[in-house]
């Protein structure tokens, strides 16, 4: 099955109840199996600019490159798969674009953004992220975080300074330790995960997970898995009902079928004929 037939994608973004404008950006492209979400920061509209650049660079560049090329091809020099390479390189590229814009235009100085992106191919998801925008996975009834925040709080949790239960009470929730566009270079965290039919992936900005407990995210995704649009609306509504103190964005990806890349001589022959 082609990836665009195998996955269903729904995205929604909302400014929340307090902020006047929305600094989050989202993009999706089912044809190349890509979803991107970014949460910008910076004065005036700089946050929107940063997240907008990040999302459009990653989405357009990757999808363009994958036209006629399989993401499973391996790069000869590094040995990495093209899918992994593309995600890493384009997050870096987005970083360079934002950094450059921030350097050259005073009103954009200091702008930056988080990013979380998933590229689905060959029954896998390559996940790249920088900052505290997250990816979760619902498999069966279990909700797990796929990404680990690049934040002060996460480091404190890892260092044993603060327990996960206490972390909810922390007042340092909003400090990220890595962001796109702040420095000349950035190191995106990239991992490859196997996906299963029935999995639901949730990408979200911290406006969701700061306002809504994981338990409620889980029950919403589980109860509404047959209706992704409703699930996305419900998640945003819960964040807003709880105060909606930040912009809130969600992308939901549901795996409806297998999407393995055909392999073997027969498949190669078939592909050769298609060309």
């Amino acid at each position, binding site marked *: 099955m082609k990836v665009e037939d195998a996955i269903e994608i729904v995205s929604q973004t909302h400014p929340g109840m*307090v*902020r006047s404008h929305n600094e989050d950006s989202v993009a999706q492209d089912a044809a190349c199996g890509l979803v991107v979400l970014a949460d910008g*920061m*910076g*004065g*005036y509209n*700089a*946050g929107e600019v940063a997240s907008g650049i990040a999302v459009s660079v990653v989405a357009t560049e990757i999808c363009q490159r994958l036209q006629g090329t399989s993401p499973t091809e391996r790069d000869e020099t590094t040995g990495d798969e093209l899918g992994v390479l593309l995600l890493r390189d384009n997050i870096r590229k987005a970083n360079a674009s934002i*950094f450059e814009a921030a*350097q050259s235009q*005073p*009103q954009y*100085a*200091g*702008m*930056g953004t*988080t990013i979380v992106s998933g590229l689905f191919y060959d029954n896998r998801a390559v996940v790249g992220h920088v*900052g505290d925008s997250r990816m979760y996975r619902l498999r069966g009834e279990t909700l797990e975080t796929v990404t680990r925040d690049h934040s*002060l709080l996460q*480091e*404190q949790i890892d*260092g044993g*300074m*603060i*327990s996960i239960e*206490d972390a*909810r*009470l*922390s*007042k*340092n929730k*909003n*400090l*990220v*330790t*890595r*962001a796109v566009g*702040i*420095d*000349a270079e950035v*190191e995106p965290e990239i991992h490859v995960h196997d996906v299963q039919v029935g999995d639901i992936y949730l990408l979200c900005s*911290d406006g969701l997970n700061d*306002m*809504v*407990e994981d338990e*409620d995210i889980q*029950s*919403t995704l589980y*109860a509404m898995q*047959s*209706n992704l649009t*409703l699930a996305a609306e*419900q998640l945003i*509504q*819960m964040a807003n*009902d*709880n*105060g909606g*103190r*930040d912009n809130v964005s969600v992308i939901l990806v549901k795996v409806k079928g297998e999407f393995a890349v055909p392999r073997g001589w027969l498949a190669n022959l078939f592909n050769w004929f298609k060309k």
Partner: protein
Amino acid sequence: MAAKLILSMDGVVIREYPLNKERMTIGRKAHNDIVIDNLAVSGEHAAVVTILHDSFLEDLDSTNGLEVNGVPTKKHFLQNNDLIEIGKYKLKYINDQAGQTNAADFEKTMVLRAPVKQAAPAAAKGDATASFMRTQANVDAAQAAGAAEKTGKFDARPPVAPVAPVAPAAPVSKPAAGPAAAPTPQAAVVQILTGPNAGKELELVKNLTTLGKPGVQVAVLTRRPHGHFITHVEGASHPMVNGVTLGDQPHQLNDHDVIELAGVKMEFYFKG
């Protein structure tokens, strides 16, 4: 406004100590930041470590120990109005959110980063950065170079000079637990009226309760600050409320509404 500790004994306030250092020690000996000259207090009794807007209390293996809100403890993540007891002395921890004026700014996501790089011409400098750098060094000593060099944070709000330092000791006004802040609506129950489970009651204690059979017909009852709603999720036929078929939008439930779903009738009502 920094968080602070208010030292008192027998209800009489002795002194206030702003938590303006990364680490403040409490003890009998004179070199402590908070000196309590009493024999029941160990030389170095306890320490309060403050990282930006959070403070942690730690017992330094004192002889007589300490209590927080009446509970003996070795290590504690301090919350506003916590009462620390050392012998007859009491220290009240104040990290008051209501006193904050620029709440929204504090809630903005900010980056901890390196001030040395050329990328940060206006990075926060001075005391704030210095003390924070130390904090960072402690927090993530294990971090690799790239990550470990982060220090100042920026608050990108002003128009031209985008980098405004924020004193690390200043308490932030983000509500500690957003989700808990929302008012909970009146307790409600769904009672099944027909079918094999007739008479059963389902208390709506969760924010989201699922009704129906997956694959056949599913609706969810959501609990929101201003009431309970029913929403159709899946199935060819939509649920009915008081004989009227619902659309795709959430429908607010009133006391004693009758819901009909997959052939089963049930009554929604408020409790008490």
